[in-house]
C-alpha cells in the first residue's frame, strides 16, 4: 500500500467546515482541465496512490490516466464505493432494497451474469444478500476496469449501516469478494473506527484496512479521540487516515505531526488544490512518516 494517497473530495466541492468553501471549491474545479492539472502536480510531487469515488468525475479521471499512460505509468488506485448520492433520491422513493435491485437489474452485464429476466430476478436477488452485494460491487467497479487497484474501500455510510444492522458477515464477504474477483484488498471506511475494528475482528476479517477520519481535533471521530488512540495502539488492522486537516481546521504541520506519529498507521489520505499545498504536505509527510514515502 502507498503511504500517501491523494484524495478527491476537493474536486466535488466537499468541505466539512463551511458551505462557502465548498461552493468555492466546486467553482475552482468546474473545468475538468483544472482537475487534471492538479492530478499532474500531485504525480510530479511523488504521489502514486489516488483515491477515487465511483462517480462520473472518477470515470473521466480514470479515462484521463489511461489516455496519458506514459505520464501515469506507475499509478495505483484506491476506489471507494458506492457513490451514495446517486442512490439517495431513489432510496427515499422506493426504499433501499428495491433501489439496489433496480440498480443491479439495469446493469446489462449483471443481468447476463445471473441469466434471468427482470421480473423473476427481483425476488431471487432479494433473497440472497451476498449475491446482491457482489452484483452491486461489480456495477460500481466497472469504471476502474484495467487499472491497478490496490484497495477497494466500502463507503462509510454503507460500512456503518451494515455494522449497525449487525451484518459484519456481509463486510467479511465483501473483503473476500474483492480479493477473489479483483485481486485487491477490501477496505472499510468508517466514522466509528473503534467499533468497526472490534466488529471486523469478531467477524474474522484478518488485519483489515480501515480508513477513518484521524485528526487532533477529534472531528468525525466517534466516540472520541481517546478511544481512537487506544484502538490504534492495540493494532490488529492497518489504519488509513483521512480528514487529517479536519477540512482546514488544523494547521498542516500539526495535523501531520499528529497523524504520522500514531501507531499502526499504514497510509495517509490528503486532498489539496494547489501546488504549494501539495508540495508542503508531501514534504511534511516525508519528513515525519518514518522518513520516506515508500510502499509498505
Amino acid at each position, binding site marked *: 500500500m502507498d503511504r500517501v494517497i491523494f484524495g478527491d473530495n476537493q474536486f466535488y466541492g466537499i468541505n466539512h*467546515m463551511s458551505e462557502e468553501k465548498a461552493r468555492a471549491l466546486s467553482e475552482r474545479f468546474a473545468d475538468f482541465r483544472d482537475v487534471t492539472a492538479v492530478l499532474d502536480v500531485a504525480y510530479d510531487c511523488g504521489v502514486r496512490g489516488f483515491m477515487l469515488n465511483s462517480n462520473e468525475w472518477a470515470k473521466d479521471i480514470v479515462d484521463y490516466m489511461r489516455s496519458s499512460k506514459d505520464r501515469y505509468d506507475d499509478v495505483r488506485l484506491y476506489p471507494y464505493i458506492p457513490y451514495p448520492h446517486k442512490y439517495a*433520491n431513489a432510496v427515499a*422513493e422506493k426504499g433501499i432494497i428495491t433501489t439496489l435491485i433496480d440498480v443491479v437489474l439495469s446493469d446489462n452485464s449483471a443481468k447476463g451474469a445471473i441469466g434471468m429476466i427482470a421480473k423473476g430476478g427481483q425476488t431471487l436477488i432479494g*433473497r440472497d444478500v451476498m449475491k446482491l452485494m457482489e452484483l452491486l460491487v461489480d456495477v460500481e467497479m466497472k469504471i476502474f476496469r484495467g487499472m491497478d487497484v490496490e484497495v477497494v474501500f466500502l463507503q462509510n455510510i454503507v460500512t456503518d449501516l451494515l455494522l449497525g444492522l*449487525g451484518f459484519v458477515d456481509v463486510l467479511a464477504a465483501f473483503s473476500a469478494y474483492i480479493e477473489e474477483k479483483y485481486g485487491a484488498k477490501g477496505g472499510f471506511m468508517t466514522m466509528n473506527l473503534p467499533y468497526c475494528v472490534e466488529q471486523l475482528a469478531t467477524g474474522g476479517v484478518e488485519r483489515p484496512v480501515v480508513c477513518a477520519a484521524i485528526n487532533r481535533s477529534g472531528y468525525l471521530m466517534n*466516540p472520541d479521540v481517546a478511544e481512537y488512540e487506544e484502538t490504534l495502539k492495540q493494532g490488529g488492522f492497518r489504519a488509513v487516515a483521512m480528514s487529517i486537516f479536519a477540512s482546514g481546521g488544523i494547521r498542516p504541520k500539526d495535523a501531520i505531526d499528529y497523524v504520522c506519529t500514531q501507531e499502526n498507521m499504514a497510509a495517509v489520505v490528503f486532498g489539496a488544490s494547489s501546488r504549494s499545498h501539495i508540495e508542503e504536505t508531501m514534504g511534511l509527510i516525508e519528513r515525519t512518516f518514518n522518513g520516506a514515502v515508500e510502499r509498505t
Partner: protein
Amino acid sequence: MTLRVGFVGMGRMGLAHYAILNTHPEVTPVALCDQSKQVLRILARKGEVATFTDVDRMLAEAPLDCLVISTPSDSHAELIAKALERGLHVFVEKPFCLLPDDGKRVLGLLDGKGLVNQVGYVNRFNDVFLEVKRLLDGKVIGPIDHFKFEMYGRTVTRDQTGGWRAEHAKGGGCMYEFASHCIDLVNYLVGPPERVTGTLLHSIVSEKVEDVVSSSLLYEGGCCGTVLVNWCDPTFRKPSNKVELLGERAKIVADKYSYRVYLEEERADLGMVKGWNTRYVTDIAQGVRFYLRGNEFSRQLDHFVDCIQGRAERNICSFRDGHETDRVIHEMFEDARGGVR
C-alpha cells in the same frame, strides 16, 4: 434497564433509526414492521428480531417498551394513538401529525401516562444549532428583533414528480417534508410565532404540491422574521439550512457547519471579541456513541433513550414541540388559502 424497541416503517429513516439503536447498549430491537416482506426478510436474516407486516399484530404479540415510527406522515396520528394505548414510549419521524386537530387528540392521550414522546426534528441536535441555542438561552444576543431562516436542497428534481412526495394528503410537498425542518428550527430558536402573513406557496417542478414556501412570522413585542424554503434548487448537494438572527446586542449567522457572531461588546467569558467571531463545526462538534448519517441522528435517539432512562431533564423535541410546528404549518396553509398558486 434494557429497552425493548419495535420499529414500524423500514424505509430510509426507519433503517437508519434501527441501525443506530441496534448498537445502543441499553436497547434490544425485538420487532420490525413493514409492508415489504423482502425488506423484512433481509433485515431479520440473523433471526434476532420478529417481523410483521401488520402493525396491530406486532403491538399485540411483541413485548415492547417503545415504538419508533418512520411511516408516511398521514399514518402517524393513528399509530401513535395505538402505541400510547399500550403504554409505549414513542419516537415518531417528523412531521408529527399532518392536522393540528389530530395532534391535539394525541396530546390528550399522553396526559398522566408519563410516557416519553419525541418527534424527529433532527436539526435540534445539530452541533452548530445546539451552540446557537445555548447562546440565545444565555442571553448573549438579547431580545430578537428580526430573523431570516432559509432552507434549500435538491430533494425533488425535474425528472421526478411522482410518488408519495407529490401528494399533500400523504405528507408530500415541500411544506410538510422539507420546510417543516426550517419552521421547527424557528420554533426551537425563536419560539412559535403569534401569527403568519404573506405566505406564498409556489410550484416549480411539482404538479400538485408546492416546491417553494415563503412566509413572514410575527411576534408579540414586535419581533418579526421570514422563512424561505426551496426543495428543488439543483445547486445544493445536501439540504442546507441558513439562520440569521438580529438581536439587541448581537447578530448570529449560522448554517450546519459554522456560525458567526457579531458582538457590540467583547465577551471575554465566551472567548469572543467585539465584532465578528467565527466558529467551525470542526472545532465544536462532539463525537457520538455510534455515527450514521450525521451525529445529530445518533444524538436524537440517544436523547430519547436518556429520557426513558430518566437521565434527561426534559425532552428537547417532544410531541408538544412537534404539535407547535404542525400548528404553524397549518396557519401557513390557511394564510396562503387557495393552496398551490
